[in-house]
């Protein structure tokens, strides 16, 4: 019954339409992107460790090298790791299992999605091959992206491929969730992770076309001589920024929601508690975020020269995001209340997530205020803020997800000592990396600088500490990822439900689940919920 029983055949993986294998293909691709992005991050950190050229060749060409690292780090982390890791790997592997379905609604389209994603990764990798490496950041603001000598087309095609992949995946999963739930499973009995993907995928489906359109116009301007964003010929520079963030702010929720969903699952299982105030978190939290996500993008443009009334209007909408996020946070914390918490690697990540969510969320509040943002925006304060919430919180959620479902996916247990050591290095490392950046950010250290000789000399000390932190994280990541690989091959055999979870993917499947997922058709009772431990 299990996927691994008949030995390994490459063709079985390439032509697979099984959502579980597709999920693993997503995981491999996104971890590859993550590793490369991590190497870029280390290069960036080494360069910033001291003012003046450290590893770039000199002050005149250094920017060309450094900007490629920045570009690749950003694009690979968001387009190649976070979105595919959460809505690709986790959603693929877990959604059908959690709702008691045999597969997704359109398995072949699902296979197309994953290979489009891989094609996107390959195009992104061309960055290191072409002579005119893209250097336009993951935001690609014109006129720079139009006038630069760097290869804007690679960026645009990466967005197209991964964008198209995620549109197909969104349709597929939304249909799956709506129509393929096990008989008897009502909307209020869904796993939090299912809800979080449902809401995230709605956002993704609605907003991705806008990004695809915006970057396509960029491509036309750059290579076909159109003037969509050229003010001398009737174009508008700011319009691109508006279109870009109209997608890319909602994209933050495409990452944030499933990340929260994963932690809800872990908390409920490890604390053996129902989700605290489930309906408030689902309807007041997740669904409200879907509604509000399209009305806050101007907070990325607070100092870009937008009309003042818009900057104030969207300050209010941006601050109001604290309501749904706050309700979700209360629900996450509340799930621990009077629980019976078992600590293991996923729960370590979960506990760290409480702290990361607070730091990342709260430092977002000054950035939501127009006037605060006028100083803090584009400094390393912003940089540290979104690394806490998007970078680390979401990355930890992917790690926690792999660790949590590892017994089910591989049929084997992780090495707990190595996993815990990896966790501690990761957790301590990220704090050492990003706290100094908060501090010098408030003092005015701008983002995306490789040289900062003009600033007070103590900035260099903070940067050195941050670089040290990055290396600690790097060791932690190597331990974590190697733990997955080694344990998948020769880990201890896992029982069917090692955490004693009540969710369908643990209670009703073999380990690992075979084709068709469930040995017998699943039906659930009216009082069943994945969190009902009584």
């Amino acid at each position: 019954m299990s996927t691994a029983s008949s030995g390994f055949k490459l063709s079985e993986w390439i032509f697979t339409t099984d959502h579980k294998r597709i999920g693993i293909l997503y995981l491999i691709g996104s971890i590859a992107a993550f590793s490369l992005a991590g190497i870029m991050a280390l290069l960036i950190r080494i360069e910033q460790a001291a003012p003046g050229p450290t590893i770039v060749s000199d002050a005149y060409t250094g920017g060309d090298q450094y900007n490629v690292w920045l570009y690749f780090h950003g694009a690979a982390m968001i387009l190649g790791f976070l979105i595919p890791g959460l809505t690709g790997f986790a959603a693929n592997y877990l959604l059908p299992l959690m709702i008691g379905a045999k597969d997704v609604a359109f398995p072949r389209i699902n296979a197309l999605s994953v290979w489009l994603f891989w094609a996107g990764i390959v195009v992104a990798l061309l960055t290191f091959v072409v002579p005119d490496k893209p250097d336009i950041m993951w935001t690609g603001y014109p006129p720079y992206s139009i006038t630069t000598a760097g290869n804007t087309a690679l960026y645009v095609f990466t967005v197209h491929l991964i964008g198209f992949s995620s549109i197909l995946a969104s349709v597929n999963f939304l249909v799956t969730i709506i129509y393929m739930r096990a008989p008897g499973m009502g909307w209020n009995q869904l796993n939090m992770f299912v809800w979080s993907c449902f809401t995230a995928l709605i956002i993704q489906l609605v907003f991705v076309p806008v990004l695809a359109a915006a970057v396509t116009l960029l491509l036309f301007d750059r290579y076909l001589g159109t003037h969509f964003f050229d003010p001398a010929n009737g174009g508008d520079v700011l319009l691109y920024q508006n279109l870009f963030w109209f997608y890319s702010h909602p994209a933050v929720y495409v990452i944030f929601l499933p990340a929260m969903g994963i932690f809800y699952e872990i908390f409920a299982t490890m604390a053996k508690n129902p989700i605290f105030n489930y309906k408030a978190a689902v309807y007041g939290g997740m669904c409200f975020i879907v509604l509000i996500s399209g009305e806050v993008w101007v907070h990325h443009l607070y100092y870009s020269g937008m009309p003042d009334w818009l900057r104030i209007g969207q300050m209010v909408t941006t601050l109001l995001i604290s309501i749904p996020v706050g309700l979700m946070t209360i629900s996450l914390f509340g799930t621990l209340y009077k629980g019976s918490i078992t600590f293991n690697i996923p729960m370590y990540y979960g506990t760290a997530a409480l702290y990361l969510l607070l730091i990342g969320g709260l430092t977002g509040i000054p950035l939501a205020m127009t006037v605060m943002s006028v100083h803090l925006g584009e400094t390393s304060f912003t940089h540290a803020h979104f690394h806490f919430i998007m970078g680390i919180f979401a990355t930890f959620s992917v790690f926690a997800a792999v660790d949590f479902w590892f017994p089910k996916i591989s049929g084997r247990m992780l090495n707990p000592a190595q996993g815990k050591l990896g966790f501690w290095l990761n957790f301590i490392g990220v704090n050492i990396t990003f706290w100094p950046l908060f501090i010098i950010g408030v003092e005015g250290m701008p983002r995306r600088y490789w040289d900062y000789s003009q600033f007070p000399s103590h900035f260099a000390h903070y940067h050195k500490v941050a670089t040290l932190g990055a290396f600690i994280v790097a060791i932690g990541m190597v331990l974590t990822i190697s733990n997955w690989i080694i344990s998948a091959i020769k880990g201890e055999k896992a029982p069917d439900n090692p955490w004693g979870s009540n969710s369908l993917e643990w209670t009703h499947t073999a380990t690992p689940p075979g084709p068709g997922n469930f040995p017998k058709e699943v039906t659930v009772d009216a009082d069943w919920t994945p969190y009902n431990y009584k």
Partner: protein
Amino acid sequence: MGTGRITWLMAMVIWGMLLQGAWAFSKPTEHSDIDPNLFRIDEQKYMGVKFGNEVMLLDENGKPFEFANLPNLPFVLVPAYYTCDGACFNVGVALKELLKDVKSMSAGKGFNVVFVSFDKNDTTESLSKFVKQLDIPGDPVTGWRFTRYEKPEVITQEMGKIGYKFFWSPRDRTFFHPTLVMILTPEGRVARYLNVLNVTPKDIELALLEAKSNQFKPSETLDYLVSLCYSYNFKEGRYTLSIPVFVGLGSFLLGIGLLVGSLGIYRLIYHRKNIGK
């Protein structure tokens, strides 16, 4: 009649040149004695310059005129000289006609029109004669003001600050000058240069809306939203449709369509399948 004919010609020449490609004057034509390039305004250089900060202007009655006393509205600044029966007069008439078709606002309510004379010889008399000839509708006339400089020696410098150049031609006994009006923000900063002989009422309306974009009233929301569909084209000297807005809007609707459509289609298939069972 000699002077009149030449000024007419001058206006035509400048108009023609502007029509050809806005500010991109290339070479003088046989009709003109001076290089029209001299009138060219590098808009980007002068945008945002404040007009009339410390300048004393006199109004229709020779009393001091202060911008600060105008209501907090954007205004159309029309450089002219009042003994001119050619270009300036035509600018005035053209503006009058254009503003008739600006539906969303009217002079005195949504904006003001301020003429300023760059001729040091203009007097209250020449001014009132000009006003009478122009025959602005409305009784009393609201929103149209006519001014001249108190100190003649500052005129060239002050007009130069906003990039406006003019020359007195002793031979033709006339001024050579561009047929431009400026749209200023309520605080008096140059927002747009428009050639009234080359624009439509829509352009004026859009420029005015843009000049006060921070203070539009709730009743103007729709006009403001419409204005977002246009962007100013420096090359053509007018507003053109902003295609990315429509592309963006279209792709957003496509996204919503994908959501609703794909779920809808699947619903049909699903129900048909279940009926078949």
